């Protein structure tokens, strides 16, 4: 359903993505791994049109979305959870969900906001709180909840585990598992190797703006060289 | 950071092109035959209305002479000083250096007048002011190259102060724009008023051309405990302040009294009934029954389909004084241009507002000042009814030069 072909992206003169290819199919969870500066976040930003690619193509649900403005890309059914979570400090929890719900044309569940409060009871308790008053974990839940109310065909998450306590990460893993199980495909950038390998069916390893490895999760776990070269200590 | 030599080359090139371009601007050859008069008026802004009338009056005067002096055609070159001294200076320079005018006429604002008086003196360019009533123009800033064909503020407003004191008014609060003419007019009133037993309790000055809402000043004035507000405003500022005075319901509490600029004919449409029954001093009104005036009013009416206001009369006098002087000089601007002004000084002529004579500092003196009331005439239109009349007062001293 999502196909990325030969993506080349620049920040000014700096050639960050040097021909990235990847694809996500229905009901699949795909993880993009790699070190800092490998181009993972940039790949996501290029897909979403936040940092438009200079060359290459992004096709989503058979529509070429490469040159579309971000809000149109999102409207076509992609929801995004950014690395910094993108919580608005002066907006209440409820309003976060309402804005996202109001912006999406599709209204899949009858009461999506209530549904989010069901999954994250903590958010229901804090529905009147401002974004700036939430803890890191609560912010992450809200960011995911906000993505869910739009009823997306694809969810893109950028390092959802970053900066969270291990306990919260466990909870997060469970939630993401649920979402995956419910049939929404996920595209995930993650530094937490454990979380990524738990969730993902298929893995891409990026380095220097290029895909260095693509394969199912098992084959990555089996491949010590790749892990050593591109992932960690 | 340091500029490259390429940069220099570019600059040089640009400079050279600029120079070549500026050098190729044709310099205006002096047209033989025509006498050029630079007419500088604030055609835009708060004094746009009087400026337009002056221009019209000026034209009527020139037409009376067939737009010719001793056979030489007269050419008017207009410039807008925007009531801003710095702009006036630029326009003056253009008159002198580019248009090569023989003399400069016009100028309403005393602020512009003060700035130009020095310049005219340094450039030895005759300058015949139409308004610029501030006493300093022919006092502190007097020059053998400067004349004023109207009158000084003191010559006019002193009579006003005298009149209101004689009417039993004991106390007044004054309001005026804070610039030379405003201060001069209010000063003239104050001298006349206090010399005759009145007392000015408070003087309120509003920033010239800046104030649009007079509510704060009017409230203060109403609270001063004086019997009347005496004000000098003109054009748009006058409309504004009279209207707001009424808005605040002060007409029954403290009358707002002004002169013929506050209640100018040109402002009647905007003021409506607010102008009715206003009593004020005037140097001219259309129904003065002299032959010269009736002739002027007729000519003006024929051309512009309306009665002339005081500014038109002053513009007419300005043009007429210039034409009479030129006639006397045989249609030639003398080599020593101060002679033009001294010739004008020796003139005496009949004008719609009375006999015009000049004093030693080249300022026209007022023969008389009228007190009039605005009333509804038999045709339902507003008109002026004469009430009283005074001799014009003298100018203030201050000129230290002799010529």
């Amino acid at each position, binding site marked *: 359903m999502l196909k990325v072909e030969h993506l080349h992206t620049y920040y000014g003169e700096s050639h960050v993505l040097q021909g990235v290819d990847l694809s996500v199919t229905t009901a699949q969870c795909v993880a993009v791994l790699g070190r800092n500066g490998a181009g993972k976040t940039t790949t996501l930003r290029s897909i979403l049109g936040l940092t438009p690619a200079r060359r290459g193509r992004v096709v989503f649900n058979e529509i070429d979305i490469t040159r579309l403005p971000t809000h149109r890309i999102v409207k076509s059914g992609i929801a995004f959870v950014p690395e910094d979570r993108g919580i608005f400090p002066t907006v209440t929890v409820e309003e976060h969900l309402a804005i996202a719900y109001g912006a999406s044309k599709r209204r899949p569940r009858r009461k999506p906001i209530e549904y989010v409060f069901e999954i994250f009871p903590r958010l229901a308790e804090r529905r009147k709180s401002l974004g700036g008053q939430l803890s890191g974990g609560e912010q992450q839940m809200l960011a995911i909840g906000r993505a869910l109310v739009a009823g997306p065909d694809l969810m893109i998450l950028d390092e959802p585990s970053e900066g969270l306590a291990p306990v919260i990460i466990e909870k997060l893993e469970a939630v993401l598992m649920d979402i995956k199980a419910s049939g929404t495909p996920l595209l995930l950038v993650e530094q937490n190797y454990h979380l990524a390998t738990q969730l993902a069916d298929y893995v891409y390893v990026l380095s220097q703006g290029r895909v260095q490895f693509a394969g199912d999760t098992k084959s990555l776990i089996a491949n010590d060289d790749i892990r050593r070269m591109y992932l960690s200590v | *950071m*340091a*500029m490259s*030599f*390429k*940069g*220099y*080359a*570019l*600059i*040089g*090139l*640009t*400079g*050279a092109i*600029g*120079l070549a371009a*500026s*050098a190729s*601007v044709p*310099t*205006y050859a002096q047209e033989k035959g025509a006498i050029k008069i630079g007419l500088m008026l604030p*055609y*835009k802004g708060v004094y746009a209305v009087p400026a337009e009338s002056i221009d019209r009056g000026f034209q009527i005067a020139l037409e009376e002479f067939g737009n010719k002096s001793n056979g030489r055609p007269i050419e008017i070159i207009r410039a*807008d000083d925007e009531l*801003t*001294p*710095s702009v006036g*200076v*630029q326009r003056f*320079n*253009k008159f002198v*250096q*580019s248009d090569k005018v023989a003399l400069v006429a016009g100028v309403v604002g*005393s*602020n512009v007048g*003060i*700035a130009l*008086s*020095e*310049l005219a003196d*340094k450039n030895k360019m005759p300058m015949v002011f139409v308004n610029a009533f501030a006493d300093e123009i022919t006092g502190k*800033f007097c020059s053998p190259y400067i004349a004023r064909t109207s009158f000084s503020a003191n010559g006019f407003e002193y009579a006003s102060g005298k009149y209101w004191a004689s009417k039993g008014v004991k106390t007044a609060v004054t309001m005026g724009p*804070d*610039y*030379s003419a405003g201060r001069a007019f209010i000063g003239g009133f104050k001298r006349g008023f206090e010399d005759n037993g009145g007392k000015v309790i408070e003087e309120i000055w509003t*920033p*010239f051309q*800046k104030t649009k809402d007079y509510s704060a000043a009017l409230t203060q004035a109403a609270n001063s405990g004086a019997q009347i507000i005496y004000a000098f405003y003109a054009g748009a500022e006058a409309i504004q302040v009279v209207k707001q005075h009424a808005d605040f319901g002060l007409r029954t509490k403290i009358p707002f009294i002004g002169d013929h600029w506050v209640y100018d004919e040109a402002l009647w449409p905007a003021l409506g009934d607010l102008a009715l029954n206003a009593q004020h001093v005037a140097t001219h009104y259309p129904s003065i029954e002299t032959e010269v005036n009736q002739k002027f009013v007729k000519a003006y009416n024929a051309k512009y389909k309306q009665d002339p206001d005081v500014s038109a009369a002053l513009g007419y006098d300005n043009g007429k004084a210039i034409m009479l002087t030129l006639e006397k000089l045989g249609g030639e601007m003398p080599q020593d241009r101060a002679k033009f002004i001294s010739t004008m000084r020796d003139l005496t002529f009949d004008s719609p507002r009375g006999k015009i004579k000049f004093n030693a500092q080249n300022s026209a003196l007022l023969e008389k000042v009228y007190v009039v009331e605005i009333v509804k005439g038999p045709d339902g239109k507003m008109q002026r009814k004469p009430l009283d009349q005074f001799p014009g007062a003298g100018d203030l001293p201050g000129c230290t030069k002799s010529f």
Partner: protein
Amino acid sequence: MSADVMLTSERRAGAMKPLPLPASRRAYAALLVTIGFGLCALPSFVSGYVMTLAVEVMIAGIFASGINLLTGYTGLVSLGQAMFLGFGGYGIAIGTALLGWPLWISAPVTLVVVAAIAAPIGAICTRTRGVEFLLITLAFSQMFYGAAIKLRWTNGSDGMTGIPRPDLSLLGMSADNPTVFYYYVLVVAVLSLLMLWRIVTSPFGSVLVGIRENERRMMSMGYAVANYKVGSFALAAVICAVAGILQSQYTYFVNPDAMSWQMSGEGVLMVIIGGANVILGPFVGAAVFVVVKQALSMITEEYNLFFGIFFMLVVAFFRGGVLGSISALIGKRQ
């Protein structure tokens, strides 16, 4: 002092490698000299009015150069520089007309006083940056503008007249003569330009450029950035005041309009038209400004309209200004 100079010149001869320069350096120098001659000879082949315009251009150019030091070199966009133009004019007027000092005392005293006033103002203003800086400089200039209108001893909004031009009777000339005044302004303009050139190529000037490029980096290099910004502010003020002195001599008077924010805006525009951070940019900008304004006011009463549009186009499409654009064009072709 002289020992220092000798030392440095020795070092220059010894240690410094000659910088690679284009062979045509001499040609450029020759061109500059030609322009110089052209400007000197100008009065002999143009009308008095063109000379008057040239005087206006040079005065505006000095004013814009002061703004350029602050805006183009230090990167601080001010909308209040006209206050220093006014300070220059009022300083000279107060010195000569009120205090009765001769011009040659009034002028330097004015410049010193302007620097002394500008430094604390600069210290306050440079605590802010960007839009806030723009607005606080505007507020300061409006404050002085308002004060000048209200002050009785400077004649309020009427301003002060009788400002003397330099007494050149020793040379047998009168500065009231337009040609003589032209040369006087030319000399001051060239001196100001040389001074500015000295400043921007000096170590101090290179710090200012560094601040424009990246203030944080300059701090972390060890520069007390705040002091340099204040220095730049005060120097710019002095240059603007020089223009103010000339302007008031040119018109023989000064009034509060010299400090209006429109005046500041026009100065900034000249810098943008000519090209910021190029030493001659402001002069080119001033020339374009004065000539276009003059031409427009001859053609139409509504030069505000055309001027506003001109302003917008320049800002939107010619960021480098005239010089910058020409230079970019040539750069592209090479």
